[in-house]
């Protein structure tokens, strides 16, 4: 059987078998009824022939299931288009050289963890001198003036500092994602930036373990960086994008 990219489904050991595994908890006590409930949930998820391979009593009226089934759905892989950052990634030296030669001025970057988020691990890894995994942070770049405002910075304060420092780019980090607080924070920042007429004058970039470039674009940002991002990834995006915009006379 040949693979049909317009109808792709999950794979176990035979093409189009649709096999997959899920695990979940139901708020009911363990027993035959719970098992049947789990099976019915799987059917509604579009799984054929669901089989509960593990049922565990979690106490306090909760039951955990591991379940295998065969997915009945397919997706059209051939039509999928994902926005991607286009330019190639530059090294520490290349970024500095590009800024120096093509922009001829220093680039100001303001960064913060906003809202109630106190987790600075991500922003520190990107900005601070030391960087992460042996890659220098933005503070170390001779052609970048980086300002790390730290944690729990209100959105309006971040924007005020960006204006004050005449920032070329704003970096915002969001680690806590409980109840989608990160989306609220990020949306608010964009709205404030637009209200203050800042949005088009500055690159708005967000990052965090649950952020993707796609999500960032959807929220109205210029770029997003997820898990595994290193400082030079962000630096080369900023440098290349600023050069591109300058060329286009923006």
């Amino acid at each position, binding site marked *: 059987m040949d693979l049909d990219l317009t109808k792709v489904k999950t794979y176990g050991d035979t093409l189009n078998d649709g096999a997959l595994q899920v695990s979940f908890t139901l708020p009911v006590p363990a027993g035959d009824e719970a098992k049947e409930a789990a099976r019915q949930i799987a059917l509604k998820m579009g799984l054929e022939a669901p089989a509960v391979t593990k049922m565990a009593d979690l106490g*306090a009226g909760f039951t*955990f299931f591991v379940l295998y089934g065969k997915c009945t759905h397919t997706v059209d892989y051939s039509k999928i288009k994902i926005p991607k950052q286009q330019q190639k990634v530059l090294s520490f030296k290349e970024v500095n050289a590009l800024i120096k030669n093509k922009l001829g001025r220093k680039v100001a970057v303001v960064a913060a963890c906003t809202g*109630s988020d*106190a987790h600075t691990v991500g922003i*520190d890894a990107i900005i601070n001198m030391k960087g992460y995994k042996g890659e220098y942070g933005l503070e170390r770049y001779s052609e970048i003036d980086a300002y790390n405002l730290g944690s*729990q910075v209100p959105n309006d304060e971040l924007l005020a500092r960006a204006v004050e420092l005449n920032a070329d780019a704003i970096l915002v980090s969001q680690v806590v994602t409980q109840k989608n607080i990160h989306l609220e924070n990020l949306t608010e920042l964009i709205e404030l930036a637009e209200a203050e007429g800042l949005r088009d004058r500055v690159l708005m970039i967000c990052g965090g*373990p649950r952020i993707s470039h796609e999500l960032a674009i959807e929220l109205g940002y210029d770029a997003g960086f997820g898990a595994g991002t290193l400082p030079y990834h962000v630096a080369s995006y900023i440098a290349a994008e600023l050069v591109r915009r300058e060329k286009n006379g923006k």
Partner: protein
Amino acid sequence: MDLDRNKVVLARETAGKIADRLHSWIGDYTTTTTERAAARLLGIDGVDKADVPLPNVMVEKLEQEGILNRGLVPWLARAVVARNESPQKIAEGLAEGKFDVSSVPDCPKNEWRAVADALAAEAAAKIKAVKNKREEMKKKAAPPSKPMLYVIVATGNVYEDAVQARAAGLQGADIVAVIRHTGQSLLDYVPYGPTTEGFGGTYATQDNFKIVRKALDEAGEETGRYISLVNYASGLCMPEISAMGAIERLDMMLNDAMYGVLFRDINMRRTFIDQHFSRMINAYAGIIINTGEDNYLTTADAYDKGYTVLASQFINEQLALRSGLKEEQMGLGHAFEIDPAMEDGLLMEIAQAQLCRELFPKSPLKYMPPTKHVTGDIFNTYLVNGMFNLVSVMTGQEIQLLGMLTEAIHTPFISDRYLSIANSQYIFNNARHLGDEIIFAPGGRVQERAAYLLDEACKMLQTIEEISLETAMEQGLFADIKRSRDGGKGSSGVLVRDKDYYNPFFDLFMNRSKSAEGRLS
């Protein structure tokens, strides 16, 4: 491990000198939260019309009058003498504007001192009663096998936390921590009432403590065990949270001497003064503290900077002794954070864990799971957590914060917690006496690493002793984070004590005769 005993003595003595140097000035100051903690210990609770906690109202008014530097208790005791009301009534009256600070007349020192000491003794007796109750309950319960299983709940809604905490207890957790709202460390007050909409956790409030305590006691009752409750005496209100915990029978508190400075950018002086009173309260209440050395390894590399953990443990130990904590109350922290891709990384983890065990034989060591190198591949994380559990049981760790297979994805689901407990129970049981059977090859990789760590920790401690801990933190010796001496949040809450300063709890909690002794061998 064949450690150089002279080095061990040297490390401890040097850390002792570092702690003494801090204590040469800590006693000259007080802080707003120290005074608010005294108010809380005396039973003052509740908020005013604007939702400001009454301890804050009192402290602010005393500060406006310029007499907070004498301590909150002397004024309160005089108000009790003058008005013949309870401390709570006085706080309420003051908040409602029925009278003001300056309207309370002075009275002979022996008179207000007697009242102050009697009130404090009564408060201390209540805390002692709570401590006794814990001990009684523990006696009746089945003793936990070690390492003890520590899990976290973090729903943001305390009522949901209570459900999850109870379930965790029924599943076999020995210790449950309710994760605190990420924003609380920088609040200069303790919020009031139950939290139902927190982000990244619930606030440490007295009501929240009560609600989860009850849920865990119920789960303990059902399973014939005692389940410990943990919260965070950290941030800008360290001593106040300790006071609330002492009243509500918290069993453990995250309570590090340096964490706030490094990771929350809180003013150094503020933190060192606050940790002292906070730990004193914990000491008296029989609460086990957990120190936060594991955090260093989330910003610095665990292999390169393993010795900083050790140096910090020695400093935390010496500071804790100076606040009256017994070694059995010091859950010194470390973590399993070496990159899993490293060849022989497991051996390096064993070396560090075994070294901690031998250096701090009475400490209920707190061992933290891998977080830095786990990125959402739940199957891999589950396996790495298994290795972490193996090292723990093998090296006799005591407080095992269980790794969650969904670390770096979301706050734990109920099933994540179940799976982590199942993982650890399997390994702890299956390898129960592994440690008894192991002798490390003399001069082998593990012994060599341990000797290296001890050596480097000694050097670091000697450097710190020379330049002072404050300067060391300015230079970024811990966690690669630099903090300026006068910077950071909360510095305005530090006051130089007046010569007439009085806080009866310092004497009550400290067992003065024993306090000066450091553990020197």
